[in-house]
């Protein structure tokens, strides 16, 4: 028994130590705070327009899966259209139509905005009814005038696709869920950033990245007050503005006012917000004609003229318009999906 006792004591000691470690581990874990990094204070800049940066920290698998879904026609009721049908990535992320065509040839009620750089917007849709891309995805999918589908149907369709499911399972696990599909699409959309535009290079210090005329155009753009609204990295998209601050756009348009024309009112139901829209980004404006929420203007010259008139309450010379356009062209950045260039 003498020889036995120390071994026995040792065993008990080891058990006690293991138990103690076990308990302290839990306390240690609980003590560990799950702090998220707070927003760092952004640098103040002299320039109203800021360089555009790519969205970091995106899961490449999710992007791949999201892209697949973005081009997948099964997301529409009759498998006729996909996200890319209206958001043509090669051509600035729109279909260059006043209103897009949905399933069964239905026509939308508002102009299709670009899908590029959308995550920089303070909200989605012209009226900002979706506060982020996650909320936005279901909009067109379930809109009877657009894709007219529903997620249970889509899940049923996708569940049959072995190849898709294999990729899906790698990222999200076995169960096919609408939330995950939306997340994948939103992630893909977040990756659609047109970076490294000539203007951004100019902002970074390369004075020759844009032409003298473009530089002049930028000065005009600022001096006319355009940057009051079209500012920030996305040259817009971060605020709302009434369509027709200095003059009545809708009266002079000559067509009846539609529900879509009411803009942000449709969200807030406050009369003050009538005819107020999210200020669109001008990053790819040279590629995304026709213009305005009603798609009523087909040329950029016209659009600039109308903006000066209704928003700024002044006229702009044709010469200045051209200079501004030259400047606007330098805003177009690069993305592998975007094949159309600003020069065209």
């Amino acid at each position, binding site marked *: 028994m003498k020889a036995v006792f120390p071994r026995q004591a040792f065993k008990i000691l080891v058990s006690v130590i293991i138990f103690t470690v076990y308990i302290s581990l839990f306390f240690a874990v*609980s003590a560990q705070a799950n702090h998220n990094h707070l*927003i760092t204070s952004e640098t103040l800049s002299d320039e109203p327009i800021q360089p555009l940066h790519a969205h970091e920290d995106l899961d490449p698998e999710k992007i791949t899966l999201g892209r697949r879904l973005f081009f997948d026609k099964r997301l529409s009721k009759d498998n006729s259209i996909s996200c890319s049908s209206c958001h043509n990535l090669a051509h600035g992320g729109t279909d260059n139509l006043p209103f897009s065509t949905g399933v069964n040839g239905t026509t939308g009620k508002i102009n299709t905005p670009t899908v590029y750089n959308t995550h920089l917007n303070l909200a989605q849709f012209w009226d900002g009814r979706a506060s982020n891309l996650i909320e936005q995805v279901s909009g067109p999918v379930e809109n009877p005038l657009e894709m007219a589908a529903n997620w249970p149907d889509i899940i049923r369709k996708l569940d049959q696709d072995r190849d898709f499911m294999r990729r899906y399972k790698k990222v999200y696990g076995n169960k096919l869920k609408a939330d995950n599909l939306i997340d994948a699409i939103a992630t893909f959309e977040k990756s659609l950033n047109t970076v490294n535009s000539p203007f951004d290079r100019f902002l970074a210090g390369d004075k020759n990245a844009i032409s003298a005329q473009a530089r002049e155009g930028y000065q005009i753009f600022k001096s006319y007050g355009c940057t009051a609204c079209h500012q*920030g990295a996305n040259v817009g998209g971060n605020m709302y503005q009434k369509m027709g601050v200095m003059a009545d756009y809708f009266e002079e348009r000559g067509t009846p006012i539609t529900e879509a024309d009411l803009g942000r009112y449709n969200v807030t139901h406050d009369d003050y917000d009538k005819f107020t829209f999210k200020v669109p980004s001008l990053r790819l404006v040279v590629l995304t004609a026709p213009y305005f929420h009603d798609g009523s203007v087909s040329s950029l010259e016209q659009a600039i003229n109308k903006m000066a008139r209704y928003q700024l309450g002044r006229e702009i010379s044709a010469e200045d318009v051209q200079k501004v356009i030259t400047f606007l062209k330098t805003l177009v950045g690069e993305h592998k999906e975007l094949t159309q260039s600003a020069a065209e």
Partner: protein
Amino acid sequence: MKKEQYALITYLLFFVVTATVVSVLYKRNQQLQEYDLIQNKLEQLKELDARIDRDLLLNLSFYSSNYDALAESSTRIDTLQREITKQTTRFSQDEPEFKTVLQQYIQNSTRKKRQLERIKSLSSSIKNTLQYLPTVINELSHKITASRHDPEDLRFRINQLFGVLLDYNIFPRHDKKQLLEEKIAELESLSNHIYQKDLNNILSHIQANLRMKNQMENMLRSYNKMNINKELSRLQIIHTNYFTEQTKNSYIINLVLIILSALLFISLGYVIQNLKKAHIRARINHARLYDAIENINEAFALFDAEDKLVLWNRQFELFYPKIRKQIREGISYNELMAAAEALGQFKNNNIPRLHTSNDLQGHTKELEYLADGRCFLTSDSKTSSGGTACVRIDISDQVKLEEKIIWQANYDALTRLPNRTLFLDRLAQAIQHAKRDSTLCALLFIDLDKFKDVNDTLGHDVGDILLVAVAERLSSCIRKIDTASRLGGDEFTIILQEISSTHDAASVAIHIIKKLEEVFQIGEHEIFISASIGITVYPDDARNSTQMLSNADMAMYQAKEAGRNTYRFYTEEMNQEMKTRLQLEKDMRNALARNEFVLEYQPIIDSQSNKVVHAEALIRWQHPELGRIAPDKFIHLAEETGFIIQLGEWVLRTAVTQMNQWLKDGLQPFSVAVNISSRQLESDILIKLLSELLTEIPLPRHALTLEMTESLLIENSSRSNNALEKFRELGVNLSIDDFGTGYSSLSYLKQFPVDILKIDKSFIHDITQDKDDAILTNAIIDLAHNFNLKVIAEGVETIRQLNFLKQNGCDMIQGYYYSQPLPADDFYHYCLKQNRQQNSLKPSNGT
């Protein structure tokens, strides 16, 4: 409570409590994390709200020219709010106040955000007017300068107005607004000048600015009133209070659980200690078990329920030396035995089966034969745990002993041939076989002729060697399916199976006879023997083995009677004869008790005195059914069956008693002769009997004569001589019967102490006609007289025969000429009459 149960319960309790502690701690940890998360987010919201206020201030004061920061904060607030709502769903159910306040907060926050957006829009427009006005005023100034026409001092007044506007925009005071409105009204009142259009444009922008500035003021005022921090703080407090409460509760629970755990730890220690003790006990038990199984002579192996080897002793390895390397833990019985088979461990590759079947006793016993000649008794029994305990007992010695006993019971030790027992068994089998296959089977009964002589002359050792040699020759004469066996002595049998005809049996018999005729060279001796063979055939002669054996025996006797060195088939006549013999033998044994035997006495007359000097006692059998039976019909039988001993005794006793009676009755002394058979001489019984009888009934010397044949004397020469001397000492005369028919060797006359010769009646019969017989008879008489022996002529029937004999000096005459054998009474009267006649004929000689 048993210790094991205590240990089990302690273990269970320990794990339950540990699991509870862990789960409580885990849950608490979860709650803490959740708390931290929510608090953090609420804090972030506060910070973001402040940030929005700050950034808005920066924007409004023209320090920042874009809204990216605001937009980002706004989006973040949205996200955080959604996350908090989602993450506090459960918490909100516990604390409804939190839910209410949260909803209120989100509502206010949304309102504030919307207000913010309006301020942003408005601010942009205000900035535009302020940015545009210098341009348009400058343009007008240039125009005025160019035209050198400035009615109403327009340039100055506009510039002044713009100055006031800027002042108002920076320091918006009511008095300044009034001043501005006055100035605007002044300029509006100016009309009909060339700068009217430009002026209107400027004024409209100024008015727009004022209007928007107004709106802005109102908005900012209401924006400032929107204090959402209050709600956020409230949320934090509610949340914190709740968790403080939770922590208090869980602290007590934790404490209790930890104390419980500690107690259980102590119990665990106790259990471990007990386990240790149990372990030591188990080790001691194991050692005992080891000692037990290692110190038994039997091989032992234990297989578990899955038929895997778990325990075995060294004996088990020694029992199966060829698979020693394969014996290891976990191997199955079948694998083991397959290996043993492959290595040739078992005899005939007869794999023993492991008995796992549930028979009644739970164990089975079988024999297992190994290639090296060992034999194990297997005893496989079911264990309580469903395994099999496998025991092997080495019974090789027992088996060998048994085999030896079986062999001894069935084989003849000398010749190594099957003995009588096995022979009978084989014969029965052969009969069955023949019966089944409808074939013939024959039994040969072989008896060696004159084997007794070999034993007598050369000794038993040589006799035994000869028997072995005979056995070998017999075995060489037969096929494998046939059986040669020794019944005992010099009797052999051969069973021939599946023979096609009786002729085959005869061929074998002839072959055997020829083979045995060849000389046997045993040591320095050259021995010649022969055999008599009796043959019987199944199913022709017999139906069973007993009958067959007796048939063959009978046939063998026939062969012997036919002159030996030959064979005889059994016939039905033999059987009949045998039956008669048997009946006779049976009757004969009864006859003695029933007094059916009588003695008759044939007088023997002295040739000179014509008196009765001798009488031959002759036995007669008065059979109740068959009538009178002659001695030659039953004496031989009595000799064969050994009844002669009893019969001989009776004859002697009767004759002696009769003689004694006659002498008492006054008959003149004479000698009565009794025939002695060879069987009577074989033992000392006769001597003993005679001495007793003569002591009991004393007779004068020479009143009794024993008659025996030549051949009897020759055959028992060594014994005879001794016996004859004894007889003589008792005062008994000896005569040789049937002299001349046997060996006709006269040397023994000198050798044996004989008194009388009896010439066989065959010589006497033709004595008067046949010259040879006459010469021979004369020679015998002369010879006898020369040896000092008396001569009796037997079968004298005529006066001529008598005269011839008288002339040639024959001493005594026996025959019908004088008298046939007579019953005792008649003989008495005959004696009286004959002796009286002689006395009357010769009165001078009468006494």
